[in-house]
């Protein structure tokens, strides 16, 4: 057995780690940008600046509630991906503290509408349970 390590193997491993880091960093950035876009859309809908409801049509009211809740859930989902990868790059795991922080930041976006709040709350719980179950 050779006493010296093959420098090519070391270089390859370093390159592989560099590719992984780049990939993670890109995910952090991309997910954060998507989350920002979703937050802007959330401001428009959940801040009651934009509405798709006219003539108090029940169907449109229902669609708007679902859209409002889905935007917040997607925001939470992409933020979790971004923060999770960020923490991985720093070498630390995602803790309950960050998870609860993101949970609150997402949920308060729906605080102006009781129905959206309830729907978002259960949606967030569902996402957290899903992420907990799929982790190794």
């Amino acid at each position, binding site marked *: 057995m050779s006493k010296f390590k093959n420098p090519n193997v070391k270089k390859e491993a370093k390159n592989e780690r560099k590719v992984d880091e780049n990939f993670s960093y890109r995910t952090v950035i991309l997910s954060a940008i998507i989350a*920002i876009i979703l937050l802007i859309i959330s401001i428009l809908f959940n801040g009651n600046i934009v509405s798709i409801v006219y003539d108090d049509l029940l169907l449109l009211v229902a669609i708007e509630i679902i859209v409002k809740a889905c935007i917040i859930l997607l925001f939470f989902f992409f933020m979790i991906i971004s923060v999770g990868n960020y923490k991985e*790059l720093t070498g630390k795991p995602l803790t309950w503290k960050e998870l609860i922080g993101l949970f609150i930041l997402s949920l*308060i976006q729906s605080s102006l509408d009781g129905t959206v709040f309830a729907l978002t709350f259960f949606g967030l719980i569902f996402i957290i349970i899903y992420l907990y179950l799929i982790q190794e």
Partner: protein
Amino acid sequence: MKNKNSKVLAVSLICSFILLSLCITPVSLGDPIEIDPIFGDTPIINGDIDTDEWKETLFETIYLKATPGDVGLETSIKVIQDKNDLYILIQFELVPGSQGSNGTLAILISNTNSYNQYDFVDAKIVNISSYIDYSYYDYNINYATNNFTADQEMHGNGAGKIEYQGSHDLYTYEFHIPLGIAQTEDAYLEYEESYKFNISQGVIPSFPEGFIRSSNVTINIKDPPQPPLFNTEVLTIILSVTIFSLNGVFLGFYIYRIILLKKKIKRIR
């Protein structure tokens, strides 16, 4: 002895009959109903009912009776209240020409919640002549002295109109009665109190002989709604700005941390 008892019984019956007859006055006719006014938009008192007027409330039905046994004239009534005033809409139908082109309606107002005719101190009267011309009268009434006099200063307002509708004439009367103002010649209607109103219908505006039939209603005057302590709209805007600013600050800080991480990775490499 038997003869004496019969006499006493007969005298008692006659006395009871006389006393009962005295009590039967136009004010006591009709079964009273209780109305809780709805707070709504102020109607224009002109005898015309626009589509936007009086829409907040539904009609109640009363029967204006000439005698206690009378079936009565079916009459629809709506009552709306705003901050300072009470508005009453009254409609009924009569056979065309049964009263010519005239019609009079009086609202007698009690200053208590009792049927005692002496408590009815105020009368608002609208007399319609020639279908569309109307006059409003404000009277001070005093049953004790049988004195019915026009007020020196008129308060409130009233209007009326008769519409020919083929098989019947539709009589419409609108009244505006001020609330919470103590007037010497009018009934003082206070908030959160109930008052008896007598609605009398007739042909000529001469009280009481010009009136044919009447009915009582109780109207519960409500306290005007208090303005909300906080403006909900402003509160919502403040809440929205706070919530989304918080999110924005967090995301800004997070982006800053990502940029720092990028620099850190570069340094390590």
